[in-house]
């Protein structure tokens, strides 16, 4: 396997800006010895405070280093990838040494074992035992009680008037969120917690808040009418309330799709007690978007690594539902190659918005969408305070925030292909294809 990452793509793997800077510094052949690359792996030894052995599994970009750093990937691993990306000739093709083959063998064995075990557990346990049935019934009762409480709380809010929430402290929302967590409806907990950020944050906040409250009411309503829903919709509603599936359950029940996936970019958000990461992919043959959602609690590294801005043949398994979007990687099958020339996607903004409307028709609670827009021109006004992208027809959508200088620099006022995350109001740029090269956006590295 050949490695075809660019320096930027390697830096996008860095867990923080200081690791990225240190990674750049370590991408210097003079600091390395016993370098080598084979079909599966990349390795080398780096002289730091001690001599560190660094190895990378190319298909999954899983790295391991003998240094004591908790960061993943660490600066040495980033340095090695950086070197491979920028100075490929410094790394000879070779047979991996024993310390690399041992690690690869161990990894493959354990990951195969894990998947097998998980699927067996999900499928094999055919009829649930009496105990399990009892637990499930008990949970259902708890959730129902929690939803009754939520409905009362919602009714009370509109009865008293939304104007009153302006003076409420954050704990007002947190209390209700906590009640939902206790009622074993964690997804609703997150939804309610998010409401706290709406009041007074924009001029049309009452409209936004009412919309979110209304959508919550629709969700509890849908749950109460569960029997009348399609099986897919029932799955979807249960997920939205908080019946999480394990990875094993997903891989046993979800639809698996093999395709060449474009890895368009990533959004990382602060969440309660950690970070949420959404990686956006797009199937080049199926033309389907997919989102890999990962959580990191208390600074732990994310488990799955993606070479943002490249494509790779892989099998993804989707969470079941009426509009399957969330997915997990089942197997990575091909080499990682950079995105080149053009992005697939919508020729104009109107057709993109139509797709969004259709998706909402199938899953009305969708919050985020992947937008791939071809030939749009970024523009700013008010000395860089207001930003939009404009299509060939003269239609435009606003960009969020005020720092899109890199996007503007790369376009030079010419049309570019943009990948972004759409939240119903603004686009958050993920990457841009300009002059045949893809550059990641919205990252601080």
């Amino acid at each position: 396997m050949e490695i075809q990452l660019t320096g930027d793509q390697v830096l996008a793997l860095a867990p923080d800006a200081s690791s990225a800077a240190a990674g750049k510094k370590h991408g210097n052949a003079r600091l390395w010895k016993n370098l080598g690359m084979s079909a599966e792996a990349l390795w080398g030894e780096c002289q730091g405070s001690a001599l560190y052995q660094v190895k990378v599994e190319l298909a999954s970009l899983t790295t391991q280093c003998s240094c004591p750093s908790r960061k993943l990937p660490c600066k040495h691993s980033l340095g090695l990838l950086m070197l491979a990306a920028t100075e490929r000739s410094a790394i000879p093709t070779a047979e991996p040494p024993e310390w690399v083959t041992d690690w690869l063998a161990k990894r493959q064995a354990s990951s195969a074992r894990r998947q097998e075990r998980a699927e067996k557990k999900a499928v094999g346990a055919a009829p649930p035992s009496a105990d399990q049935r009892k637990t499930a019934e008990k949970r259902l009762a708890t959730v129902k009680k929690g939803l009754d409480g939520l409905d009362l709380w919602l009714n009370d809010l509109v009865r008293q008037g939304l104007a009153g929430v302006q003076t409420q402290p954050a704990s007002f929302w947190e209390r209700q969120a906590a009640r939902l967590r206790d009622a074993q409806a964690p997804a609703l907990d997150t939804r309610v917690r998010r409401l706290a950020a709406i009041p007074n944050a924009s001029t049309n906040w009452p409209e936004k808040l009412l919309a979110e409250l209304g959508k919550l009411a629709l969700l509890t309503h849908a749950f109460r009418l569960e029997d009348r829903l399609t099986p897919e919709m029932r799955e979807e509603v249960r997920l939205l309330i908080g019946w999480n599936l394990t990875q094993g359950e997903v891989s046993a029940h979800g639809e698996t799709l093999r395709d060449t996936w474009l890895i368009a970019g990533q959004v990382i958000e602060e969440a309660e007690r950690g970070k949420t990461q959404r990686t956006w992919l797009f199937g080049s043959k199926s033309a389907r978007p997919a989102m890999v959602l990962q959580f990191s609690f208390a600074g732990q590294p994310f488990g799955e690594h993606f070479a943002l801005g490249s494509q790779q043949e892989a099998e993804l398994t989707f969470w079941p539902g009426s509009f399957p979007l969330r997915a997990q990687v089942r197997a990575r099958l091909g080499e990682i190659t950079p995105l080149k020339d053009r992005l697939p996607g919508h020729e104009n903004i109107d057709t993109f918005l139509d797709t969004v409307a259709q998706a909402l028709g199938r899953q009305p609670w969708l919050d985020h969408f992947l937008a791939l827009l071809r030939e749009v021109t970024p523009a700013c006004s008010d000395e860089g305070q207001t930003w939009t992208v404009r299509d060939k027809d003269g239609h435009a959508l606003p960009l969020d925030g005020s720092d899109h200088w890199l996007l503007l620099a790369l376009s030079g006022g010419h049309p570019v292909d943009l990948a972004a995350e759409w939240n119903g109001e603004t686009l958050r740029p993920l990457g841009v294809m300009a002059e045949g090269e893809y550059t990641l956006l919205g990252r601080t590295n």
Partner: protein
Amino acid sequence: MDSLVTTALVGLARQEKVDLSTGTPVDALLASLPDGEIERKFLLCAGARAIYCQAGKQAQQGPHLSEPAGPERLRPCSPGAALVLSRLLAGEQTLLLPGALARMRQRGLRLSPHLLPQALNITSKETRAFLAPVLGERGRWLSQFNPSWRWVQDFLPESEFSLPPDAETIWQEGPTARRAEILRRLRAVDPEKARAWLQEAWKQEKAETRSTLLETLEVGLSPNDEPFLEEALDDRSSGVRNMAAYLLTRLPNSALLQRMHQRAQSMIVRQEGKLVVEPPQKLEKDWLRDGIGEKPAQKISARSWWLLQVLSFIEPAFWESHLGAQPAELFKLLADDPWEMQVMEGWSKAALSYHASNWIIPLWNWWRAHYQQAVEKRLLTDYTYREQLLRQMPAPIVEQTMLTMLNAYNGKPDNDCWELLAEVPRPWSTEFARAYLQLLRQHCTVKKITAESFNPYADPWINDLPSLGLTLPTSCFDEIAHLWELPDDQRWGIQYIRNQLNECTATIHMRQQIEEEII
């Protein structure tokens, strides 16, 4: 705000009748709402309406687009070069940034677009001058959108001596820095026209602007400029007078220079094998007019100040013919005069500003012998003549001189050869670098620097290690790696030496990458 939102804000409790209709197809669903509380119905209705609106979201009318960036004239830099530059721009090894940018310019390269925001955010004035020529069309185009990037407009596009087509508009309306640049370029091709432009605008300009614009006459200066400059000597502003006087001294036969010569002659005469110095007791009006300041800026006497100013205006060759002696001899004749220090300072200023090459080395020798004395007496307006003189000496002589000083280094902390070492032109010659490293190894043997009693923090050789990364020539890079075999010791002292050495190698690595990538 529509009725649903208003109702929600006020609260349903305060309304007699709640209207659930939204005027959208959502209203068709109202009939199927479950019986029960009005609040519940209201919320479901609001939810459905929200999703309806979200699905029906329409694009806004796009803004008017500004003209895109024009085609580039410079070559793009390689991805490797871009990576090196992104590190430099991010603040790593900042001392190497100007050199790397100058190298880009020499090779006709420009920064790749993704580096531009980072580059345009640089605030150092000195670095901006190096950045401007490598921003390319894209960089100039981009800078118009961000108010804090307007500095780019102060730098005219490349091609040194050509005038942009909108030169006259810039001259009429532009900021002072750009106007001066236009004038400077016009002087190079048509000095008469440039002076005419300046004369025409002269009366309306502020004093500060007058002096900045006047300075541009130095390009293509000729006797034709003298009448205008003589007029400028009557200016209200001392800054303008001073600039006019300076320019007039650069005209070999100007009336002002004649006047200065007379003043100088009256102050220094050769009598009985000695030079006798006698500055005037009071300042004449005509001295003032010729740009001689009355009150000293520093703590020196007014008479010293007048003497110093007159001397610094006069080309040193004048003294050789007038007093009939070579510089070294003149210094001897001056010895022990009460005004010796002031005259030497005036001559040093003049020699430096006129680049009088036959005076530089004699002056350096004199200052080497008298510098301590000057520092103790606090008689000077400037204490960096040695550094300035070294900068005008040919590199081999500077290296030889420094080597003599380094060889004489006896470990005393007050030895200031380390400060002067910074003036050796970079990169050092291989011979000088080898000799320096040899001395370094002699002074800092492994045995000595690993001893418990050794204090690396106070050792100039150790403290100077990081700057070796900037000064060593490529040919000596390998020697740094094999300087010492330091023991694997965690003592602070050893760690410090190791860190100093690492800093040096980090700089060297960066220099190697700059040389390999920016091509």
